[in-house]
């Protein structure tokens, strides 16, 4: 049960308050970038490359410029005059804004057409004639690593191969020793395929440069408006756009999932064109552009190994990764973490030895990869560890639930030092799995499975017990382009006791306007309905690194609590003054201070705030405002125990999820209904890569499923009835004991589903299946083990 400290009227933590923002969303009154219309605004469309790798011999814009309404056609050569044809990526790699001579992936930006309306811009784009000389692309990351592979980044002086970086963590020698002496080792090569966030709103912007004021207002689909402002100032400072002259506004965002963290060339072109013409420039991607050109996620080729004793004790793991980054490393990771937080991949299990290494490689694919609803590569890591745990259980002949129970880190062993250097803050993995097993009826299901197998029916049960690492992050380790990953909150309480609070984060549908208000309500006792939340305007909000990687509650949520506590300390002083007692004599209950032993002698928070403006004590600053920049001492480590039950049609290989039980532990819960909503969405985005989604490229460099006709995003039809629940293990270092939750289900669901599918066909000789497990892939696998004997 979730305990609430505040009344329903105050609506602090634990209350299932309806989302304040939904009033405008469900009435179609949201204000997205594409809703913004400015006087004299021009529209931009982008000519994109049909080739994955080609020289540009000529760009002929003459026919496009003949079309009435086409104002300009901008090429890389035009931007080169202002040194704006290249830009840095968040990982300090380089990326073309527009090419001057070579295109490096299909759908790459080649030229921009500016016109008086959207349709004319599209007509102009069709009329731009580009003369290419195609070259043979390098699409396979393994081939890209071969010594005779063509060097793709020949723009980089001295580059002689396609290797980007090498990374490793853990104890290589010790791991090798454990593997050499282990009773049992299991090994599996797996691919976590390239997928796309596919947010409902595509990316876009309105860049509005005011020549007279030398001021740029950038309305933009970004999850990190403050960081973007700094990046713009760093990149365009040399043409006069210094940071105080740049205002970034991120209005309502229709889903981000990490895809709206990077800076895409389209944004930069729009800024450049607005800067040169003085007219506001709107650029909005269409669906296929978004899917084909914007940052992908995942694309890790992992060789995973686990070693252990014959009675089922895990002793060590070893992961080796080849990361296909496409044309440039445009990941959105903290600077010191080229593989993100992949090193969480030792999972929820108590063993002391691990070694992980990764190499990144350039290919002729679009750049990336973003942390798609995932705290920087955690999804890849969790998939590997949870698949290996199942394979190990099978090898030693133990039930996968039993083996997990025997290997879990015990709740009394927290904080727990992982072999890859993390300090897990808290967790109770046994309780989570037990709750999930009880909810699903695990032991009965196992009996049923045996009975069904005897009838020739295929049913499988899959478990995933994952540990997440979210809330980047402590400033000693975490920065993006040097800016530390703290986050901020500013609370202003007005004389009548109503408040506005502003944050450095940016909601994209997570419900910040509600949860942040509940945190402030919890701490100050002001009803959450009367706390207005604002984010996304760099001119008004305090600086912060934005919303992704489930970091908002761990960082900005903590900042909200800390700022509110500063105000409560001030409120106590004012109350003591008003009640003419000493501060030590006062006690707090949500919404008021009262004198110990005399509860009728009390001042409500509203009375106290009013006094701060009308009757504040001598020597005290007037007003009732506070700001806090929260630098987390550690990350938070949410966990989950998921159990999936699948049924497979033995003739068509159609896979049906019969049950899915998700028990999450995200520490103290702020709004149970929002958490449940987040889990539902995340699970659906977890079933996506497990069963449906993958960006497929052919050898010639074509993307073969660059539209929603072919790229299969699960809808309500594909979503089973999610059965959710929770255990609560508060984070000991977080001010309100909360962790993050948004990405847990996306991270935890895929291995549960795949483990269930493999479990359903394990008795037929299947040991592993690559995601997405489609009916056709399953059919081929079952055929390879002799289950089907048809000739097809």
């Amino acid at each position, binding site marked *: 049960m979730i305990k609430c400290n505040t009344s329903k009227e105050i609506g602090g933590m634990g209350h299932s308050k309806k989302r304040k923002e939904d009033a405008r969303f469900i009435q179609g009154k949201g204000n997205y970038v594409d809703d913004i219309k400015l006087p004299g605004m021009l529209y931009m469309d982008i000519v994109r490359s049909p080739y994955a790798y080609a020289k540009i011999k000529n760009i002929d814009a003459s026919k496009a410029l003949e079309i009435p309404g086409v104002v300009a056609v901008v090429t890389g050569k035009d931007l080169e005059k202002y040194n704006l044809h290249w830009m840095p990526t968040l990982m300090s790699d380089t990326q073309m804004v527009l090419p001057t001579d070579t295109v490096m992936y299909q759908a790459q930006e080649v030229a921009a057409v500016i016109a008086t309306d959207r349709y004319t811009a599209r007509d102009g784009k069709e009329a731009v004639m580009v003369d290419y000389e195609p070259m043979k692309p390098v699409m396979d990351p393994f081939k890209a690593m071969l010594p005779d592979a063509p060097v793709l980044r020949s723009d980089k002086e001295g580059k002689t191969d396609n290797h980007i970086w090498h990374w490793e963590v853990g104890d290589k020698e010790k791991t090798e020793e454990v593997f050499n002496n282990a009773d049992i080792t299991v090994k599996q090569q797996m691919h976590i395929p390239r997928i796309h966030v596919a947010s409902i709103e595509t990316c876009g912007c309105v860049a509005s440069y005011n020549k007279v004021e030398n001021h740029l207002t950038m309305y933009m689909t970004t999850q990190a408006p403050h960081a973007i402002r700094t990046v713009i100032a760093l990149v365009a400072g040399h043409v006069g756009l210094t940071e105080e002259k740049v205002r970034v506004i991120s209005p309502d965002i229709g889903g981000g999932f990490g895809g709206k963290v990077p800076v895409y060339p389209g944004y930069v072109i729009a800024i450049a064109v607005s800067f040169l013409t003085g007219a506001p420039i709107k650029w909005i991607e269409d669906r296929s552009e978004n899917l084909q050109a914007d940052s992908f996620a995942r694309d890790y080729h992992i060789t995973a190994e686990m070693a252990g004793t014959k009675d089922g004790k895990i002793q060590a793991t070893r992961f080796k990764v080849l990361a296909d980054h496409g044309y440039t490393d445009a990941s959105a990771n903290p600077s010191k973490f080229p593989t993100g937080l992949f090193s969480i991949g030792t999972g929820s299990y108590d063993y002391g030895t691990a070694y992980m290494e990764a190499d990144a490689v350039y290919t002729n694919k679009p750049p990336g990869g973003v942390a798609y609803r995932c705290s920087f590569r955690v999804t890849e890591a969790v998939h590997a560890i949870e698949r290996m745990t199942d394979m190990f259980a099978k090898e030693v002949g133990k039930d996968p639930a039993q083996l997990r129970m025997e290997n879990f880190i015990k709740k009394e062993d927290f904080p727990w030092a992982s072999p890859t250097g993390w300090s897990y803050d808290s967790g109770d993995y046994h309780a989570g799995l037990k709750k999930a097993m009880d909810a699903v009826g695990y032991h009965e299901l196992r009996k049923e499975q045996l009975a069904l197998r005897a009838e020739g029916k295929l049913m499988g049960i899959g478990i995933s017990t994952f540990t997440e690492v979210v809330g980047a992050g402590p400033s000693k380790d975490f920065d993006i382009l040097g800016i530390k990953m703290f986050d901020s909150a500013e609370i202003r309480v007005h004389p009548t006791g109503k408040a506005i609070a502003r944050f450095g984060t940016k909601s994209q549908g997570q419900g910040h306007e509600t949860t942040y208000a509940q945190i402030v309500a919890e701490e100050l006792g002001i009803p959450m309905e009367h706390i207005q939340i604002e984010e996304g305007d760099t001119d008004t909000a305090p600086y912060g690194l934005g919303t992704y990687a489930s970091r908002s509650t761990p960082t900005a949520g903590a900042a909200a609590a800390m700022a509110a506590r500063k105000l409560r300390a001030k409120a106590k002083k004012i109350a003591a003054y008003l009640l003419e007692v000493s501060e030590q004599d006062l006690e707090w209950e949500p919404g008021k201070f009262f004198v110990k032993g005399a509860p009728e002698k009390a001042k409500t928070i509203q009375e106290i705030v009013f006094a701060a403006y009308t009757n504040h004590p001598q020597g005290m600053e007037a007003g009732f405002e506070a700001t806090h920049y929260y630098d987390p001492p550690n990350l938070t480590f949410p966990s989950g125990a998921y159990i999936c039950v699948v049924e497979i049609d033995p003739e068509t290989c159609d896979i049906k999820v019969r049950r899915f039980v998700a028990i999450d532990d995200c520490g103290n819960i702020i709004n149970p209904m929002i958490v449940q909503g987040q889990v539902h969405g995340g699970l659906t985005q977890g079933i996506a890569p497990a069963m449906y989604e993958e960006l497929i490229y052919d050898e*010639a460099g074509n993307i*073969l499923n660059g539209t929603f006709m072919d790229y299969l995003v699960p809808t309500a039809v594909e979503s089973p009835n999610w059965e959710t629940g929770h255990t609560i293990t508060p984070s000991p270092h977080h001010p309100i004991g909360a962790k993050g939750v948004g990405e847990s289900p996306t991270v935890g669901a895929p291995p549960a589903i795949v483990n269930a599918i493999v479990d359903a066909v394990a008795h037929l000789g299947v040991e592993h299946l690559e995601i997405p497990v489609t009916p056709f892939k399953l059919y081929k696998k079952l055929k390879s083990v002799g289950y089907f004997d048809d000739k097809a």
Partner: protein
Amino acid sequence: MNTLIEKEFDIEQPIGLVWKSLADPEDVVTCVPGAAITEKIDDKNYKGEVVTKFGPIKAKYSGDIEIVELNEGEHKMVLKGRGLDSKGKGSADMLMNGTLEEKDGKTQVKFTMDITIVGMLAQFGSRLINDVSDQLLNQFVDNFKNKLSASAPAEESVPDEAAETVAASAGGTAALTSTEKRTEPKTPAPQEDNALNATSLIGTVIKSIFGGIVDFFKSLFGGKKS
């Protein structure tokens, strides 16, 4: 994307006549929907173009056709083609192997086409490309048969120029090129009518998909397949 098309058909005409027509790019091109030879560079190299409509996408490819092998003795030919989309939206490469065999006075034509498509058509049309190619080839076979059956009885009275062309091409190495030939291709540039009709194509595809579904349901209820 890469696709391999294999096709086999019979023509009730003598092998010599079929070979003569098939071996002359300028002659055979009149049977290919949407295609035209725009320039003859020499006996082995031609320039041509193909217009196809593919749903909302209309693609016009211009490129080069090279006769890699033309073996009249074995009735075997190898053609290589490379076309670039005229709007810079992609390219297509093709390698064709064709053989003719005599069968009771008729001719059996067999060929394979290995096609690589890059760009918009590959992105948007990959699932339909085989159906569409099949439709194209069927149109070609019909056109070719009609052409031969129309020309066969009147073989003696074909206009001089055409006869000359057929004879010259059949020789394979005969030097026939003249400046007139280079500047005045006898095949007209492709017309809209000649271009592949999107509606009929998509219609065919839809019919084939739904036809299958209808058959499935009919079979369920013991009905006859359509």
